[in-house]
């Protein structure tokens, strides 16, 4: 009897945990206040989460653009269609690669640091101390990091895409000597503003909310030990990466 009960509780644990995560999200949303101190906290976190991730995002974007153009030119040359390289590169960037790769990098770069930071705050009893001083730790600690992630990821995605286009220009126009007029006119005729561009931004907004929620939640529920913080950080990366790809498929199949 006891064995079957423990099995049931093992099976229901993930469901209960996702319910807890949803309640955590509602608590964060209900603690939004539009005052100067909260705005300042969000700005400061935007610097730590967003601006400090800029370099890695830009370097990765540049090389992704280069390698995509290299592969695309090799493949398209066989049909004599290497003119279409910008269309192929930018369409795949806007729709899939930009949002997904940026979100994966963001989970590794910013999600882990948020989880570790909040987990360590918990391990050193800083969160309990706040509660004793009647300061809501969700409002002061969790919410600014969540909002900063939500704001940062679409902007980082835009910069990833911009640098990838730059990388594509460097390779296709600089190295392979293609015509820059054809490069841009293919984009301006073939990339649709709502279907491709807004669709990608919408995706990255959802990914931003997803990654930040997971990072903040795992930090907040980490066991207050060194090993607990380590496990929580690992869980953040693993779950974020899986959910980004799952949600990518769901959103693509429903909204396009």
């Amino acid at each position, binding site marked *: 009897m006891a064995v079957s009960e423990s099995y049931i509780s093992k099976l229901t644990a993930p469901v209960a945990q996702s319910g807890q995560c949803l309640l955590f999200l509602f608590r964060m949303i209900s603690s939004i206040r539009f005052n100067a101190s909260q705005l300042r906290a969000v700005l400061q976190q935007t610097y730590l989460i967003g601006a400090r991730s*800029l370099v890695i995002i830009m370097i990765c974007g540049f090389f992704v653009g280069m390698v995509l153009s290299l592969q695309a030119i090799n493949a398209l040359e066989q049909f004599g269609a290497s003119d279409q390289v910008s269309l192929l590169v930018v369409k795949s960037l806007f729709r899939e690669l930009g949002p997904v790769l940026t979100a994966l990098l963001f989970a590794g770069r910013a999600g882990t640091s948020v989880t570790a930071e909040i987990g360590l705050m918990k391990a050193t009893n800083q969160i309990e101390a706040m509660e004793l001083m009647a300061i809501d730790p969700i409002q002061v600690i969790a919410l600014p990091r969540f909002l900063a992630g939500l704001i*940062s990821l679409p902007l980082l995605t835009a*910069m990833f895409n*911009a640098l990838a*286009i730059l990388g594509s220009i460097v390779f296709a126009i600089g190295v392979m000597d293609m015509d820059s007029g054809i490069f841009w006119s293919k984009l*301006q*005729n073939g990339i649709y503003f709502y279907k491709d*561009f807004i669709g990608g931004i919408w995706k990255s907004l959802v990914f931003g909310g997803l990654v930040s929620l997971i990072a903040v939640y795992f930090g907040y529920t980490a066991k207050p030990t060194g090993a607990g913080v380590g496990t929580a950080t690992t869980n953040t990366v693993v779950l974020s990466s899986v959910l980004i790809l799952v949600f990518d498929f769901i959103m693509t199949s429903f909204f396009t």
Partner: protein
Amino acid sequence: MRPNYKVELASGIFLLLGIAALVWLAMRATDYGQGIGKDTYQISARFTNVADLRVKAPVKIGGVTVGMVDSIVLDPVMFEAVVNMNIASRFNEIPSDTGASVLTSGVLGDRYINLEPGGAPDMLVDGDEIFITQSALILEQVIGKYLFNAGSSEKPQ
């Protein structure tokens, strides 16, 4: 000056950079702002077959885009495709005996509508219909006809 002023400045710069990248991508690398403007008038044309002509396909005169296809509907009585197209108002002197044909850009390119201006003194205005039309050339039908003709010509007379 507040102690974390530099941090706020840096995050403000980050936000501005991100928004600038968004706007740059939208303006430069998509079809946003590539339309023909809001100031248009609508004309229509009937075709027996428009093939894979799509909404928003360009309408050209002499290779220059003057408008775009607004909608394609089937006339339920005549079973003809009725193509409604918006023409930019600055091209308001298109003769009323202008012909329209569905062409393809390149061998495998997209379909577009080509207008061949006539010489009539009165001009097309909003709501007018073009009567001289030529349907799309369907590659399969052309090949089919060619094969059929080649087969029949080999028969002894």
